């Protein structure tokens, strides 16, 4: 297996990270696709330096977030509100799943009102990172990470309340 194939295989296994980061940072399908492409490019570019000392996913989190934080979406693009999830056909029988999906949609919509750093905090928190790991990833102190995360969670709750959706 060539290095490129090996890389694409690993990426395929961890594509949920690409999906989550792109949905956190971009609100339209086209912008999400562009961000996925940009992260993929940056991952491939630095893949040679990845020595396997850490988990592939750990490495991927860092590159993906660093790319998202310095990425700017194209201007003057025709707004297409359909996100990557828009393509999913929801079965009527699967009511529970539909409610869960809707809840997640509201969450992603509310997240769009957060700053780039706040999005990173929430992302790492939901991925199960500890305050220490969040601090290490972002380059801030552990105390600062805790304070920032609490403030961001509060802000997110207020946005969701303001948008008229409570869960």
């Amino acid at each position, binding site marked *: 297996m060539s290095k*490129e194939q090996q890389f*694409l295989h690993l*990426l*395929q296994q961890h*594509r*949920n*990270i*690409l*999906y*989550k980061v*792109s949905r956190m940072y971009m609100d339209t399908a086209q912008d999400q*696709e*562009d961000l*996925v*492409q*940009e992260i*993929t*490019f*940056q991952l*491939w570019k*630095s893949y040679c*330096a*990845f020595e396997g000392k850490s988990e592939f996913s750990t*490495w991927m989190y*860092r*590159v993906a*977030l*660093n*790319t998202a*934080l*310095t*990425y*700017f979406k*194209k201007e003057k693009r025709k707004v297409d509100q359909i996100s*990557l*999830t828009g*393509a*999913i056909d929801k079965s009527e029988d699967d009511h529970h799943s539909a409610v*869960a999906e809707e*809840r*997640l949609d509201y*969450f992603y919509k509310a997240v769009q009102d957060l*700053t*780039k*750093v*706040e999005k*990173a905090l929430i992302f790492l*928190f*939901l991925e*199960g990172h500890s305050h220490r790991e969040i601090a*290490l*990833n*972002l*380059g*801030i102190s552990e105390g600062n990470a805790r304070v920032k995360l609490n403030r961001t*969670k509060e802000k*997110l*709750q207020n946005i969701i309340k303001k948008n008229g959706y*409570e*869960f």
Partner: protein
Amino acid sequence: MNFDEIKKQWDQQAGDLVQVRPASLQKTQSILETIRKNFKRELIYTSIALIFLLTIPFYEDFHEVIVIVYYLIILQVVLITISHFKNIHRITRIDRNPYILNSKENLQQVYYELKYTIELQRRMIFFMAPLSTMIYFILIGRENAMQWFSNYYHFTDTLDKNPWFFVWNLLGLATFLAFVMYRSSVQIEKRYGTPLTEIKSVLEDIEE
């Protein structure tokens, strides 16, 4: 909002809709890659412009002294341009690895690389201002260029006989310089200004 509920659903996201394409390994839109692309484009345009400037004395009827002065100016332009492109090239050669750096360090590096590029571009405008003045005299003045130089050389005489010469000439020069500098500044701002402001804002957000 219950974050535990959200987390449960968050973990269930499979990302099946994400298409990992081999073509994605070649394409990029990042600001540092844009600098690289712009660098190549600027290098081509500048080379074409310099070739054009070098040929002007062949089909314009310049005084021989003016031709020498003209080529000396062009030589300066070439030397400054080489130095400028060498500096930009140095930035584009920096091999960044977003894995090694944490987010704050990565942002700081992108910010300072971008800021350095902008400063280099701005400095280039100011370097070019005196040279633009000479080019104004030679290209706008054309067959009168020698007379214009002479008028400035015999300043008091010209002031007595034709004071309006200075008014119109300096007004023309000021307009020419203002246009060149304004256009260049707008171009720099358009290319790098907005990303720099946005990165600065993210950096402030992470630092506070």
